């Protein structure tokens, strides 16, 4: 077993510096690496390029880095629900590259799996395809999209072990498994770091080979964006 455990978030983020490209897991506020984001705020690293499906909300998630003007460029699929984001984008302070969600997912997976690029139908005929190679296969048009390249990937899992094996919970899985191994260094924060051997080898979502550092997160707020409920009848 190759031990990936580090003691805390400070150790986990060693080496993060200005101008880096970071991947951050999560969909909305669901499954985001809360501890890594807090530490990025504390470190005050600037000029970051962040790859994340969403950009958080004004006062949580990646919104915290936006407020702090630490982000130079966002690569996301959906950025509604964030006034400060919209302000920075429309004023030109923030560079934004909007990418279809499935393409974003596959650009992560391609980086993880050693594929240089892939053809997808998403975005053909739209401004997303501008300047990109398009090609016909079997009568349908596809756009060539390159794999991502990133320095750090920050992911959040439910359970993990010292070998770096991860299990995610519910829809908090989303982009997290795809970002593992898609950057030079993958840092996983988990709700529960369990003893080696406790996770069933048959039920690992992300094998430890894709993770370089793992730590138990101190606090997970897990905010809900849209609390929708039904009446008990």
């Amino acid at each position, binding site marked *: 077993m190759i031990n990936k455990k580090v003691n805390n978030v400070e150790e986990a983020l060693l080496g993060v510096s200005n101008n880096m490209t970071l991947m951050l897991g999560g*969909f*909305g*506020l*669901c*499954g985001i690496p809360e501890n890594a984001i807090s530490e990025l705020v504390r470190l005050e690293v600037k000029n970051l390029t962040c790859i994340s*499906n969403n950009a958080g909300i004004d006062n949580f998630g990646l919104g915290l880095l936006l407020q702090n003007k630490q982000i130079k460029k966002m690569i*996301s*699929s*959906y*950025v*509604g*629900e964030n006034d400060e984001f*919209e302000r920075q*984008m*429309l004023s030109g302070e923030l560079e*934004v590259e*909007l990418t*279809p*969600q*499935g*393409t*974003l*997912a*596959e650009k*992560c*997976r391609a980086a993880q799996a050693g594929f240089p690029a892939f053809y*997808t*139908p*998403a*975005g*053909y*005929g*739209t*401004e*997303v395809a501008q300047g990109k190679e398009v090609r016909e296969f079997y009568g349908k048009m596809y756009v060539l999209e390159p794999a991502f390249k990133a320095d750090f990937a920050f992911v959040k899992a*439910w359970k993990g072990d010292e070998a770096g094996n991860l299990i*995610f*919970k*519910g*829809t*908090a*899985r*989303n*982009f*997290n*498994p*795809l970002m593992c191994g898609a950057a030079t260094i993958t840092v996983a924060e988990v709700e529960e770091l369990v003893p080696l051997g406790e996770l069933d080898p048959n039920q690992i*979502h992300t094998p430890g080979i894709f993770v370089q550092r793992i730590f138990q997160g101190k606090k997970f707020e*897990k*905010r*809900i*964006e*849209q*609390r*929708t*409920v*039904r*009446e*008990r009848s």
Partner: protein
Amino acid sequence: MLDKNGIAKRIAKEVKNGYYVNLGIGIPTLVANFVRDDIEVEFQSENGILGMGPFPFEGEEDADIINAGKQTITTMPGASFFDSATSFSMIRGKHVHLTILGAMEVSENGDIANWKIPEKMVKGMGGAMDLVASADHIIVAMMHTNKRGESKLLKRCSLPLTGVGCVTKVVTNLAVFEIKNNHFYLLERAPGVSVEEIRNATEGTLVVEGEIPEMNL
């Protein structure tokens, strides 16, 4: 004329036995409430769930179980969770049979625009571009006109496109249309709405063949 629930109710009739269905945010989400109980259907949400159930009872919300609209939800027996690449494998690979989504504009050749108003609003396309580029059957659910009273069924979309030549059906508060041969074919009128009213509210080329029935909701 239909309200949002009426549009959803009409679209629910398009959901057939054995369908996997992806519902977009807004009116499409309401469709789930009107699908017949006696057919087998599963709802997929592109953030990573198949077999989506209703909202949870109060106090049972789980921050880790949401839909693509970021709403807390529940699962049905037989549900599964998966990552975003697998989710879009289902969509791109045409395993999801029907996509229902909202739009700001639809054109007579099946183009759709629903993600950006230049200089004004950019929320992003989310999964919409993947959905419309892949599904064989795409239904747009929307109000027939915008807030300024202008038709959203156009000859050509004016806003940045989400997808080209992909929309197969449009259900609005006024009518149901099929898109084929680069035209809007009028299939049904909403209760109390005349062909003339529909014609006046539609900028794109409308085809009216024979008697147009009123919807049977």
